[in-house]
């Protein structure tokens, strides 16, 4: 079937089997190597992309699901303001993430920043917990989230003080 969708801000069209996994589509057809198809069953979260603005694991999204939708991979996310904020927060927390989870964690932080989530919300630990990589300390990742979200909160609530 022909699948038309928006990928990293560009209209794209691709011939694919309806049940082909989005991760394969992105890696093999569009050469988006930030998307890692590791576990293939939605457990490790290293293939995280934003589908219609929400974080999803591309390994369990069938190709037909992205028809007419907007998909953002780390390559597209790199051009956003949220990416810069996420990168700064990771640096501030002293994190040097590996090449396998860097994209997923950065996008997760970016998503939290964009949606104004407070650090105390369960959603923060929950979203970060959906990505599993053994390269970094969990406490440091939470620290990075705290830095990223504190900045956002400061901006929002500072006016009211």
């Amino acid at each position, binding site marked *: 079937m022909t699948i038309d969708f928006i990928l990293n801000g560009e209209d794209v069209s691709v011939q694919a089997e309806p049940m082909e996994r989005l991760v394969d589509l992105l890696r093999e057809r569009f050469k988006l190597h930030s998307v890692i198809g590791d576990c293939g*069953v939605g457990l490790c979260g290293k293939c995280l992309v934003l589908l219609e603005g929400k974080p999803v694991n591309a390994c369990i999204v069938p190709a037909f699901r992205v028809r007419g939708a907007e998909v953002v991979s780390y390559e597209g996310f790199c051009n956003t303001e949220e990416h810069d904020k996420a990168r700064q927060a990771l640096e501030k927390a*002293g994190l*040097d993430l590996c090449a*396998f989870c860097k994209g997923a964690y950065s996008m997760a932080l970016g998503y939290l920043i964009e949606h104004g989530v407070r650090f105390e919300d369960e959603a923060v630990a929950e979203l*970060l*917990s959906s990505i*599993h990589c053994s390269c970094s*300390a969990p406490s*440091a990742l939470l620290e990075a989230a705290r830095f990223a979200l504190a900045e956002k909160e400061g901006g929002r609530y500072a006016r009211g003080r």
Partner: protein
Amino acid sequence: MKREHTDQDPGMPRLADFHKPDLVYVGTVRSPAARGSIKSISSPHLPRDYRFITAEDIPGDHFLRLEGETVPILAKGRVSYKGEAVGLIAGPDRRRVLEAIKLTRVDIAPETPEYGYERFESSQVLAREKLERGDCRAAMEKAHKILKAEFRLGPLDHYYPEPQGAASYYDYDKLVIITSTQWPFHVRDSVAKALGVKPEELVVKPSYLGPHLDGKLWYPSLLACHASLCSRILGRPALLSLSRNEDFLYTTKRAPFFGAYRAAIDEEGRLQALEASISLNLGAYGPLAQPILRKILEALPGPYTCPALSCKAWAVRTNLSPMGSYAGLGGSSAQFAMERIADLCAAEADQDPVAWRTANAAPRGDTSAGSPAKQGARFTELNELLLGISDYKRKRSAYELIRKRRPDPESVPGFGIGLAWAYQSNDGARLLNATGPTSVEVSLGKDSVLTIRSSVLPMDAGALELWRREAASTLDIEPSLVRILPVSTDTVPDSGAAAFSSGISVVTRLISEACDGIRSKRFREALPISVRKSTRSTKRLASPLDGASFGGAAVELAIDPLDGSPLVRGIWMSVNAGRILSRSRAEHSLKRDIARALSNCVSERFYPAQEDYTGSPLFSYAPLRIQDIPPIELRFCEAGAEMSPGGLGELAFIAVPAAFASALSQAMDEAQHELPLDKRARGEMLR
């Protein structure tokens, strides 16, 4: 490759990004049975570009060799574990390769597989070691009390950032191999033997290593043989990339440990003798069996003094996938058992576990762990720090009151805090016979650039910064003038296996010594000046406590009244690992290891591929997620600041499980000697 080697990022590409024109993908045809003889293998008709490769196609040695053990590169005639590689299918389309593998039939005449290792036949013995020190029998006869206990530690997966694999391609007259390995020269030599070529005709460039937990010592060599074989036969670049499921089921795991111990104490509770019978399940092939047994015997008394020791240890061959090392060479299992013995002895002598440990710590000159220790177990300052940050004594007393005075003795107390000590010897690689001395070559060029060459690849690019800073400060030059050459077997000296924290504890020292050598020649000789430093090999083994890193951990937990699972409230750790090169990096890596070690205890129960196993282990093996990790607090001892930098990689994996088991024992009022926890068994126990 997407990322090529550069000065800034010395060679840590991902295997997942490997791409070359005319690339063939390699898939593995695996044995459906755990034991038996191969009757036939029938593959489907393959298109022209595809090839089915069996052991018959190997031009050189059919076996990978290490430490006296042989592992078939591809099984021929017989299979020894479910999933053993019996053939390879290579072709340009990955999906068609996978389809062809599904259609391939391997017909096996099955035999009854052997999975048990606690009781075993003599024919199953892969390796054995024996230790007799002092008169154990006499000490047992004179003992005030003799304590008995059995300890079991299950297999653990290393859960690498990228599943294992290998890629190979021809670059003019040389075959280049890319794989994530701790031991590039072992990969080179193994592939050279398998292909029947000279080692100089091959170049090994390691891909991203990540936190390997000593699991990438020899298995990458096997995968490199597979990929290289395909490249050689098809004349094209080849990529073999295991799926996460394959990596889980068929690559090496921590060797399961069983120990039956007897400990003798005198009237004051001092340890007088220790007798142990230990068996390890090494699976179908155990190239590391002998070094692991040697390490277990060395670590048997832990950091404690024990006048008489007697131990028999066996590495047992079974029909599980090959097992091996995990965060050290098995010393963590022996130290776990000793820490549990320490708690039992303290309880028997009615002493506080910390007081017992302090009274029994190995003093200077102690010979319990081998040669006389130049320094004893250095726990005094470390212990004070740990007790301070964890509030151990108050909590322990409170929970003991709850345990002893609970109204319903049938119920569990529900709260516990445990403490354990650990040490990590900083020359672990010497136990591997096959690895030569670690070498580092440092040269100062005419352009004032300092070049460091070593085949010890650190876990990540950030660790290289430590070497760069160390060299720069020794020679008083800018760190930007220090260049660390990417690891490639044709340009760096053989530095042996990058294992057991040798990157920090050995290579850093060698770099510093080599830079000292350059400094003394700097204005006397013309540039370029090169200095090569190697570790000295001595026949006499030093005490493992000499120059070791020490650590202590405390774990506090409560039992969930609904499902009986332990809810860890906090983990505290204090460490004396000599001079800390980077406080923030050391904290990050220790916190990561502590979280991982806790996860190993509570949720990483691994069931290896047995005959009747059909599911995916990914669903039953559930490492703790970020939201489940309790607060972790760390302190580094200032006392170590004057010493050489020591390794940290094993400490958390020794101290945290032992402290966790101690806390759980108090919370359950029942000694816990088995890890990881079996949730099903615990549910039954609580009912």
